[in-house]
């Protein structure tokens, strides 16, 4: 039996499913049936290249962040909420304009597979 604390690198999709300089969403489900929506951004020109954050916009209160535009503000990679345009750091999840933050997930590309640790 797995408990919630057991984190594993799990494959989400293939690297060809990624969209350059843009986002896709994925549904994380673990053995206990918990679900979480994440947004995955692939930015080849950034140092990290790939990011995973929570998909829920705590300000707009909707699962839309993967549809936001990505870019950088003072060299910090960010996604801008498509609803009200606040920026969230893709590295820390911190909102740059308000006292809000989103979760950040470890993510990697292994053998053309996109994997998230959860």
């Amino acid at each position, binding site marked *: 039996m797995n408990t919630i604390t057991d984190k594993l690198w799990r494959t989400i999709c293939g690297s060809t499913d990624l969209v350059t300089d843009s986002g896709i969403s994925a549904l994380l489900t673990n053995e206990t049936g918990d679900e979480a929506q994440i947004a995955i951004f692939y*930015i080849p020109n950034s140092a990290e290249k790939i990011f995973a954050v929570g998909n829920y916009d705590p300000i707009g209160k909707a699962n839309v962040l993967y549809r936001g535009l990505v870019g950088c503000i003072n060299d910090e990679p960010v996604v801008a909420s498509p609803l009200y345009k606040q920026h969230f750091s893709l590295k820390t999840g911190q909102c740059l304009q308000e006292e809000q933050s989103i979760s950040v997930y470890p993510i990697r590309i292994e053998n053309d597979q996109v994997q998230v640790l959860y």
Partner: protein
Amino acid sequence: MSTDKQLLNKSKIVVVGNGMVGHHFVEEMSKHEDYEITVLSAESRLAYDRVYLSSYFAGKTAEDLALTTPEHYDELGVIFKTNAKVTNIDKLAKVVTTESGEAYPYDKLILATGSYPFVPPIPGGDVEHSLVYRTIDDLEAIQASANVSKVGVVIGGGLLGLEAAKALKELGLETHVVEFAPQLMAVQVDGGGGRLLRKKIEELGVQVHTSKATNVIVAGDKHRYKLSFSDDTELETDLILFSAGIRPYDNLAREFDLEIGARGGIVINNQCKTSDADIYAIGECALWNNFIYGLVAPGYNMAKVAVKDICGDEAEFTGADMSTKLKLMGVEVGSIGDAHAKTEGALTYTYENQPEGVYKKIVVSADKTKMLGAVLIGDTAEYDTLLQYMLNEIDLPEAPEGLILPMAGDKPTLGVDSLPDSASICSCHNVTKGDIIASIDAGATTVADVKSCTKAGSGCGGCAALVKSVADNEFEKRGVEVKKDICEHFAYSRREIYDLVSVEKIKTFDELLSKHGKGLGCEICKPLAGSVLASVWNDYILKKPHLSLQDTNDTYLGNMQKDGTYSVVPRIAGGEITPDKLIVLGQVAKKFNLYTKITGGARVDLFGARVEQLPLIWRELVDAGFETGHAYGKSLRTVKSCVGSTWCRYGVKDSIGMAIELENRYKGLRAPHKIKFGVSGCTRECAEAQGKDIGIIATDNGWNLYVAGNGGMKPRHADLFATDLDDETLVKYIDRVLMFYVQTGDRLQRTSTWLENLEGGLEYLQDVIIKDSLGINDVLETQMAAIIGTYQCEWKTTIEDPEALKRFKPFVNSDKSDSNIQFVTERDQIRPAREEEKIAVTIIDAAVETV
């Protein structure tokens, strides 16, 4: 905060009256510490704006007109009593007493009791529906009376009388103005101007009767009252409104032995002191140099002088300029200085254009070097310039008539640079050019800053344009440049990016970024580049390299709503739709359970589509012959139209046909912002074309083209661009105007602000488009033709592209839907559930799955 003991040491200032001038005194006085200010007002309300009194009938409330509030006075530490009429002044003991017997000791007493409307003693005039126009209470009485009246007469054809007539007209009464003098506004306007003013006022449906003295008012036959004039004529009316001038409220001064002028008014000296050294009088109750100033600006000046004098500073009131500029019932009227040319040796120049209803006269000194006065009716464009010539005694140009003649090739303009620092820019608040410069020295960086720190332009507002040009000129001199960089990644304006893309033939954002930008881009420069690339090359916007540039609305080809769902808006060109297609819309909406609403742009909006439903919905719509409506894009939205000559009894041309042709021609065009059109089939203008970016109105001889109108947040009436065009020329001009806008507009700049910021304005645009002054019309037309030739329906392209359809999957690794999107029913349709209405579906889903 002050303790009682400290208060005792403070000098006591008692202000009697809380009109505009009394209030201004309080504001100025409260800037100084060590004074305890008490305001005693006989009225029930604190100070309010009487200059804008007539706006009360246009929907403004008493609160809107208020200049202060009890809270504000509390904040200033001002003690105030309303309904407190002063009935006694004990000059020796220095105490005033109110009607209710309360006593207020003073060190300095300020009389700001104002004036009251003069009602001539006409026999029979003191009847129920005989009213005056002065206070908010008066307005309420007028409104009540108008409700049970059909005809109204204003007695008095001066400035206030015409304001009052406007009010009666707006209240729906048949309106008459009766004036004793042979002309209207006899104080400010000369005979010639008066004639034209009368004509214009009569054209607006107000009947004017001059040289009429009212002898008696008796009961009427058809209406409530009958006015009998000295020339044996009569006029029947239901309501009588007196506006025959003002008289100073000087009764306190009379009773308690302050010096009074022969015809009333409390005599004051240059320090605004009355005959008692501790009592001042300011505003309309005061008589200075045998003159009562009935305008607010001189009253404000008196208040400032009194404050300075009390504080021991030197100050003098030395009279005031009575020049005035206003709009009466839509007619522009300006009067400057010696309007009647009474100065000895004065010479005049007059220009009158009867067809256009314009009258302009300037009065100059005998040697033709100085401006003495002016009268402007129908067009006050030159008011600021003429006023500055007079106030600052600037030498006139060789041929002074050029100042008022239209079409004078190079009209001598008075640059703000040539004004001395002492030039008065805002007379209401007595702000000089020097004050504006000082505010910029002190750190003001925008025109708004300048206005808020100097108060310039916040009185009557007539000087707003002048304040802006003085401030702008000063900013320019200091090299303050408004930064046009679009964001931190590109040090260019939208126009510059447009030029870079087209000149260097740049085809992708990456190329643009690596050549001219830095970093990764952002949500500002990416869509901007996407829009420019689309304008220049017109590629399918979701083509791989452009995909990541588009705002979500463009990526998903729909408008994202607050819950993350989208709206679906098919194009219904001109609002014309067959019953069959209308049925399809209904069927699709029903099948996908979409909230359905008719839009303001004459089409149908379907709300609540989940991302994954969009391709399914559009598949059905495209199959039925619909195209995308670009409701999500910064592009052409709708062309609103009436049915025109095809059906309408009044239509003179086929407006709906033209609307459909234009909508199909420009659909898909990417621009700095959205674009709306209107086409009306006749001058009745049912399509509201003059509130659109491009407006077209049919005439007997062709089409009139309007540009740069806007509704919404900042409504703007469109400018008439060209008249009586044939179909071909109309389309050619629109091609050029739109393409020129697309090339030169700033990001998110509608055509209205674009034109307002275009140097040279409408005339320049006409030169470019009609006369081809830049020689670019061929290029503009070729570009437009290329864009029209490469149009594709983005939804049709999308649903046929399996790669593009992947974007619409809710999750890359699951076919589940977003459980956070939930609807409830309201008025038989869905709406997004509010947070507290949502069911925690995630947990239920999970539970079901684990079972």
